[in-house]
């Protein structure tokens, strides 16, 4: 019945919806089952991060930076402190750099584990969620052992880290990597190559590379579209150029390039690379250095501005800091990756089925904390 006309209907998805990650509201104009227009409403978690930055000094901002992207707090801190260090122009002990890389990569694994688990939940698979959170707890234990907190660490400081690694951390971390790598196979068996999962995700919500670049999509989502770009390799910061690892670019082994399955699977493979970086960093960890030797008592950068990007689990995290010479930033703008990734949804989501929209939304792995800031 090709000439059957249905009336357009507006469906509200969210702000409290089981399949939206956090408090996102999508105003969907539907034609039958097909999405004609998406109007995303964000800001339900706007916590005035940039205002706080104009009121607090550089050290005190770190707890708030954590709370922006709460799934990858270490990566956020890492980006922020590197931006401030660039502004201050200070040298960091090598051990600190190693510790930071270990923490960032562990947190990348933890963040991707949440992405995997909740994506399974969105699609309708509950079991992978239990598996990924089980393994994530082991990383959180490592974090708690080092920094004292499970989720929001305030661990990476300007010029150093808050604590040196505790006794037994290195062994425990090696133990974790050895435990974790075989688990990836488990996720593959459970979810990645499950036929139902593939039917729900492969060839669904394809983002072509040109569209991805146009909308400023970055990180795993960009690499899933087949663009070979990773800041850790292409604009090496910290000590990432010392390690051997591969940038994961989707190859379309199931479905096509840029579909939901590719976005999902890039994360699975990235965890393996992160684990390999952690392993190399642990092996090369320099000993006997004071991790706090370069921490400045008072951070007072010269007048000027800096824009610094780093690779967050969700994409390119940029900090634009303007200093007026005082110990409080004049302006701090955060270019949050998920903000740009989500903005493409109104373009990409058009013409999808409503159920496929959920598949798209879960696969771009948004964190509302950093979208709304």
């Amino acid at each position, binding site marked *: 019945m090709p000439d059957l006309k249905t009336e357009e209907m507006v469906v509200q998805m969210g702000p409290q919806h089981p399949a939206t990650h956090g408090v996102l509201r999508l105003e969907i104009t539907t034609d039958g089952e097909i999405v004609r227009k998406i109007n995303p409403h964000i800001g339900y978690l706007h916590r005035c991060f940039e*205002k706080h930055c104009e009121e607090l000094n550089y050290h005190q901002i770190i707890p708030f930076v954590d709370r922006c992207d709460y799934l990858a707090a270490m990566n956020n801190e890492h980006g922020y402190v590197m931006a401030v260090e660039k502004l201050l122009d200070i040298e960091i002990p090598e051990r600190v750099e190693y510790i930071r890389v270990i923490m960032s990569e562990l947190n990348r694994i933890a963040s991707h584990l949440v992405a995997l688990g909740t994506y399974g939940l969105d699609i309708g698979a509950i079991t992978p969620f*239990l598996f990924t959170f*089980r393994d994530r707890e082991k990383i959180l234990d490592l974090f708690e052992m080092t920094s004292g907190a499970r989720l929001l660490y305030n661990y990476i400081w300007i010029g150093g880290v808050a604590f040196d690694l505790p006794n037994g951390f290195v062994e425990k971390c090696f133990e974790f990597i050895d435990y974790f790598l075989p688990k990836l196979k488990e996720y593959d068996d459970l979810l990645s190559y499950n036929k139902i999962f593939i039917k729900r995700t492969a060839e669904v919500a394809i983002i072509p590379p040109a569209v991805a670049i146009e909308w400023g999509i970055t990180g795993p989502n960009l690499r899933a579209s087949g663009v070979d770009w990773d800041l850790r390799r292409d604009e090496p910061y910290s000590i990432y150029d010392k390690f051997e690892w591969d940038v994961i670019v989707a190859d379309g082994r199931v479905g096509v390039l840029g579909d939901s399955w590719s976005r999902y699977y890039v994360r699975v493979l990235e965890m393996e690379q992160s684990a390999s970086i952690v392993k190399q960093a642990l092996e090369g960890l320099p000993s006997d250095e004071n991790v706090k030797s370069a921490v400045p008592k008072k951070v007072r950068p010269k007048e000027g501005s800096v824009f610094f990007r780093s690779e967050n689990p969700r994409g390119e995290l940029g900090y634009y800091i303007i200093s007026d010479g005082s110990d409080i930033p004049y302006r701090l703008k955060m270019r949050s990756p998920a903000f740009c990734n989500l903005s493409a949804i109104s373009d990409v989501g058009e013409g999808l089925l409503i159920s496929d929209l959920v598949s798209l939304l879960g696969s771009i792995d948004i964190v*509302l904390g950093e979208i709304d800031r």
Partner: protein
Amino acid sequence: MGIIENKFRDNVIITSADKFMNWARLSSLWPITFGIACCAIEMMATAASRYDQDRLGIIPRPSPRQADLMIVAGTVTFKMASRIKRLYEQMPEPKYVIAMGCCATSGGPYWQHGYHVMKGVDQVIPVDVYVPGCPPRPESLLEGFIKLQDKIRRESIATTQAA
């Protein structure tokens, strides 16, 4: 229980019924999965394998109509506040609220400069238990559940409950 409220003293029927009702209520607290911010991740961790809140009969429900407990897990902003109120109103009686984390309790770290953050969710809906922490450990949340169960255990169908 509007009919019998405040009409009877404690007697054997009332207290037995109380015991039964409270037992039923406290051992199947179904929370609506109301994750807003960072605390939501810890709430998910509480539901996941290591802490497994199902042991206490707490099974997350996706709809407010099926829920009798709301865990406000995260920062409540002004834009969100009216939605919270609406979700709370959609829940069937008896309903309970746990304010999880500092943000929901009193605005948390955002109390001073957060122009868009509500300073405590109790401005919108009544709260039964405040769980501190930023975010609280899963154990803290479980302890909050146990405190709430204690509170339910003390309720009586024959007396009006303080809102």
